[in-house]
């Protein structure tokens, strides 16, 4: 275990930023989100939930793939380069850290996504334990311990000190020059965090029946129609979600060429996976059902029972009309 006074945090950040890009939760225009750190930015480690998840560091909302440029009768083709520089993402919470494992299963399985793979290889993840979990948090349902976040380095704030523990070689390299500390320095903090998470309103949701065995039963449940009725069909839940990973590939006509990029897509949108024959999800009922069936039934049945939800609770606080995955679990799960 290493330690660092919180007062010296900016100096530590400065040292990291000299060598590589540092991404941290920073406040801009009244919101706290992951962004590139510089000395003039305000880091907010006290804010538990960044407005978006940390997935953007590995899977950005918009990413250029290739550019085609017309010159007379010739077309010049310039594929985008994959990430080739190291970077650090600091202050990732346990839930978001788990989401990287889930995204890995999608992007790093055959065929491997070169853009994502390069970012994963070059990124060092420093996580931070959640000192004050929110009422919207329910990560414990998915075997996540807010007191023991994963990542290359795990960190805990104890009073005015930051304690850091390296979990991987990458992590060792990052914090090797910091002062040594007792291995059990964060134990009391961990206990306090666990005491709170146990009391959270959604600490133990009944997920019984959300598996491949009950697929058709869940799919045909009449409750979807009522559950989805107030859904606006916006993409808020999908875009703030750490595990949503669907994207669309689009062409932007720049006048004398094409900029081909990919961008986050949302199964809540009417033109999601639109095909020549139209759409197989004509109303919001089917679109809404798709999102939750994917997270709670399809993904786990294809991935050793792992749910594609990490309980970060962003959809609970961000849905404009108060719809969310907890509501679905309660309406269709073991407690229905």
């Amino acid at each position, binding site marked *: 275990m290493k330690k660092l006074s919180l007062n010296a945090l900016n100096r530590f950040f400065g040292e990291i930023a000299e060598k590589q890009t540092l991404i941290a939760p920073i406040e801009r225009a009244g919101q706290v989100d992951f962004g590139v750190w510089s000395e003039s930015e305000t880091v907010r480690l006290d804010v538990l939930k960044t407005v978006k998840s940390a997935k953007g560091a590995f899977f950005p909302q918009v990413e250029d793939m290739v550019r085609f440029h017309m010159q007379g009768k010739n077309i010049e083709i310039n594929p985008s380069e994959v990430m080739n520089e190291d970077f650090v993402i600091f202050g990732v919470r346990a839930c978001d850290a788990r989401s990287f494992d889930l995204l890995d299963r999608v992007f790093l399985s055959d065929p491997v996504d070169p853009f994502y793979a390069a970012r994963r290889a070059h990124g060092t993840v420093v996580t931070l334990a959640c000192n004050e979990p929110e009422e919207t948090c329910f990560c414990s349902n998915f075997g996540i311990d807010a007191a023991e976040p994963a990542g290359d380095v795990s960190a805990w704030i104890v009073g005015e000190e930051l304690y850091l523990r390296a979990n991987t070689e990458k992590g060792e390299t990052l914090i090797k020059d910091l002062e040594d500390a007792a291995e059990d320095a964060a134990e009391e903090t961990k206990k306090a965090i666990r005491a*709170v998470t146990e009391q959270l309103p959604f600490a133990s949701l009944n997920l019984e029946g959300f598996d491949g065995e009950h697929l058709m039963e869940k799919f045909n449940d009449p409750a979807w129609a009522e559950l989805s009725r*107030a859904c606006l069909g*916006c*993409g808020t839940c999908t*875009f703030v979600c750490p595990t949503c990973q669907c994207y669309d590939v689009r062409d*932007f006509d720049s006048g004398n060429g094409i900029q081909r990029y990919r961008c986050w897509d949302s199964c809540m949108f*009417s033109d999601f996976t639109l095909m020549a024959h139209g759409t197989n999800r004509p109303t919001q009922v089917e679109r809404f059902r798709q999102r939750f069936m994917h997270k709670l039934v399809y993904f786990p049945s294809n991935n050793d029972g792992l749910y594609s939800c990490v309980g970060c609770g962003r959809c609970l606080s961000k849905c404009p009309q108060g719809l969310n995955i907890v509501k679905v679990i309660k309406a269709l799960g073991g407690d229905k």
Partner: protein
Amino acid sequence: MQEMIKERVLTLINEGAADRVLAWETGEFFYDRTPKFFDKNNVNDLKYDSFCGANVTKYLIAEMPKEGKTIVLVKPCDSYSLNQLCTEHRVNREKVYALGVGCRGKIDVEKLRTMGIKGITAITEEGDTLTVSTLYGEKKVARKDALLDKCLCCKGKEHKGVDEVIGDSEETSVGDKFEMVAKLEAMTPDERFEFWRGELSKCIRCNACRNVCPACSCIKCVFDNPKSGVDNKAAADDFEENMFHIIRAYHVAGRCTDCGECSRVCPQGIPLHLLNRKMIKDINELYGDYQAGAEIGQRHPLTDYTLSDDEPSVVHERGGANA
């Protein structure tokens, strides 16, 4: 008030004056409210309190092809949206029973979170003070500091064109609603550009602002239509990012009632209503005060022509530097 509303709704349904009611239900948290249609069998679950900030009137559009009449609960500000929807023939007023409900401003839980209040488990209201219970102790907050932004530019306590009203309302405005717009106008173009770049660069194109907006009632938006040539799901560059919201503001100009839902639902906290309010301010200055949705059948200044309209040069002069 909630019980009086339920009782009245039940009477109306039992008398055959209506078949269902569009209101709010409680969600997973005590502060969560979801728009919902109730019938006489489940009307007991209807919720009306300080957390019902959502404007539900747009949901009436999808109800129109159905048989029967729908009671809709409207706060004073929501009544303007209902009237505007009727003016635009998106809602048939004859199929709606507009039940005005009293309002003294609605609480914004996100605002409490921004104040650093975490783990909110209960809120009790006593006069102008809120006691917020959390997993980490109790906090007192002035009610006015916890109101939705739209309530700080309240349309007043009068419901416009409703069939009846239950409960009293209070005007909750603080200051002039055009204050921030005037501040932006006073900036240099560079400063103003910086302000909007800072705000709009947070946009994630979730379309919540568009989908919730009662004035955005196109069946298929150009931005969702592959045949339009301008459809997209994320901005390919900075220019597009700026333009989406500006185009939307232009599209609803003259029809926007300033209901404030766009800013309420924005997951990124962008003050989108300021774009619309700039249009409203300009319309007021150029053509005289106008409030969209004040009554059914209005023609708004941008689509209306009368012989007494001023010549463009006069209008231009009146607009001064902002025209």
